[in-house]
């Protein structure tokens, strides 16, 4: 039997106390429209919760949205937790209020990509498509 094409699964979450979810919801919809299965885990997630969800859901990607300024603590915490759970094959990307200097530091520390305010949604989708070509959908 032919192997069914399996959509790429992305866990999308807000870590930390910040509740501004406009961006993450808009991105979730755009990813769905691009053919991805998006598991939205909501607000106030801890790094442990996000990684645990990604493992249960067998997701390939974790997307985080942070507007509170706590990104330099929270992104690395998620990367650490992935290491601890031996799941470093799951890639991490994110968005929010993140200054350019911090982006460089985050990328050195295991975050694959950061999308700053004003990034067209298509850019995020293109990046995912290029990262996961075998799952090319419409």
């Amino acid at each position, binding site marked *: 039997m032919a192997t069914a094409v399996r959509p790429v699964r992305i866990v999308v979450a807000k870590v930390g*106390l910040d509740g501004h979810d*406009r961006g993450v*919801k808009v991105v979730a*919809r755009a990813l769905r429209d691009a053919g991805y299965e998006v598991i*939205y885990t909501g607000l106030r997630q801890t790094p442990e919760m996000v990684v645990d969800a990604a493992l249960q859901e067998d997701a390939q990607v974790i997307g985080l949205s942070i507007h509170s300024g706590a990104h*330099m*603590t929270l992104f690395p915490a998620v990367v650490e937790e992935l290491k601890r759970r031996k799941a470093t094959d799951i890639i991490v990307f994110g968005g929010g209020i993140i200054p350019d200097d911090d982006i460089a530091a985050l990328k050195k520390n295991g975050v694959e990509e950061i999308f700053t305010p004003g990034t*067209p949604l*298509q850019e995020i989708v293109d990046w995912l498509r290029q990262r996961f070509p075998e799952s090319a959908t419409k």
Partner: protein
Amino acid sequence: MKVRARDPKQAWQEEFESSPVREDGIETSTISGIPLEPLYTSADLPRRAEEYPGQFPYTRGIHPSGYRGRLWTMRQFSGFATAEETNRRYKYLLANGQTGLSVAFDMPTLMGQDSDAPTSRGEVGHCGVAIDSLADMETLFEGIPLGDITTSMTINSPAAILLCMYIAVAEEQGVPASKLGGTLQNDILKEFIAQKEFIFPPAPSMRLVVDSIEYCAREVPKWNTISISGYHIREAGSTAAQELAFTLADGMAYVDACLERGMHIDDFASRLSFFFDAHIDFFEEIAKFRAARRIWARWMRERYGAQQERSWKLRFHTQTAGVSLTAQQPELNIARTAVEALAAVLGGTQSLHTNAMDEVLALPTDKAARLALRTQQLLAYETGVASTIDPLGGSYLVEALTDEMERQAEAYFKRIEEIGGVIPAIEVGFFQKEIADAAFRYQQELEQKRRIVVGVNDFTVEDEQAIEILRIDPRLESEQAERISEVRRKRDQARCSNALNRLRKAAAGTDNLMPYILDAVRAYATEGEIMHTMVEVFGTYTETAVV
């Protein structure tokens, strides 16, 4: 040549239709989707009796003298890192002409957590000032006479606690509560709808709000007990019409709750205040503000039977739209903010906050914060717009738009009523869905270039110059943790525990909680301890997420 007498309107119509039309981005509708016609004429003026400022329904303003009597308050929202640093920034802004204080708290404080709680890791002092106990509040207002200024505090779920801290600091300064003036945001409904900084479930949250309104009506009569907010709803992606409708609906829900408590409408209505966004779609915003006054006045007088004029007058604070700021070519944000501030002023706002240009990236630097304030001063003193009351009154466009806003708001009120009211609507995700849909639509308009944002989807530059931004010292978190430990060490532990126990008992009953919270605050219980005590009784709330 034969000269025909032509109907001038028809003539214009024909000439317009045969003229070439610009191809690049004409906004043919407002962000709310209301069509923007090429021309409005007297035929578009709504048929109504001439309106005057200071007269019901206050479309043209709540004061007969407008800004001639008193300028809007220049109230810049501010706060970061420690109470000490924020205290310095306040003194700096007051010295530079700011006329009222506005406190921004950090995420842990907004969420009722102490700075040393595990969930506060990485979050202390980043988006506002960290306040853990009365000790921090004392530092925050050190050297600032609370009897002489007004202060706005932007906090919601723990609002009652912060208000009690303010009252306690004033007490220490020898200022009685009855003299205190200011505003508490305290608008929990919009948290459930948009900003999501809720802790307790809706029912106990509403109880706390009503407790604070009831308490202030007696003890702190000059205090604006609530700032019913549309800003956050708008920033979450709603249209202007939705912002207007949802905010006023929330207002009515609070009025209903207070009436249910047994208060009389005229005892509290005049201390309800509002908070709107000033977005970049210029004329729509002005119409929104005017419609807000008209609608609220009607509802207060006709539906709720308020007798006193001051109960009918909608007063509001405005903040320019954070969501309109761009990270690209950020200096342009100064211009955006100026246009938005102008809309707020032409709409008759009572007080105004203008964003700093660097706020997409971080909290503002001193320089950017000062420029934002100067923008308001420019409007007030150089442009002449404050010299005439409601200068756009009578404009065909603005009057037509004001009416349209009113119509759309009323249509939403009906829908909310059909669902059973604001809280049932929140629980089925009605507002959240409207907002998420509008946000997504807007994003698509941007991506398809049907709407332009300069520097983002058009007129971009390749080489963005980095600008200097504010950094929060990471040592702050451990320093703040030490401060809390010190407070806990030095306080009278028995007095503190007793106060918290009494609060817990009262929370399980029906007493007004304000006096109990005040006692706990005076005993130097931390914010986290007070919130935790109430969580033990009220529980916490998980939202129905609507994407």
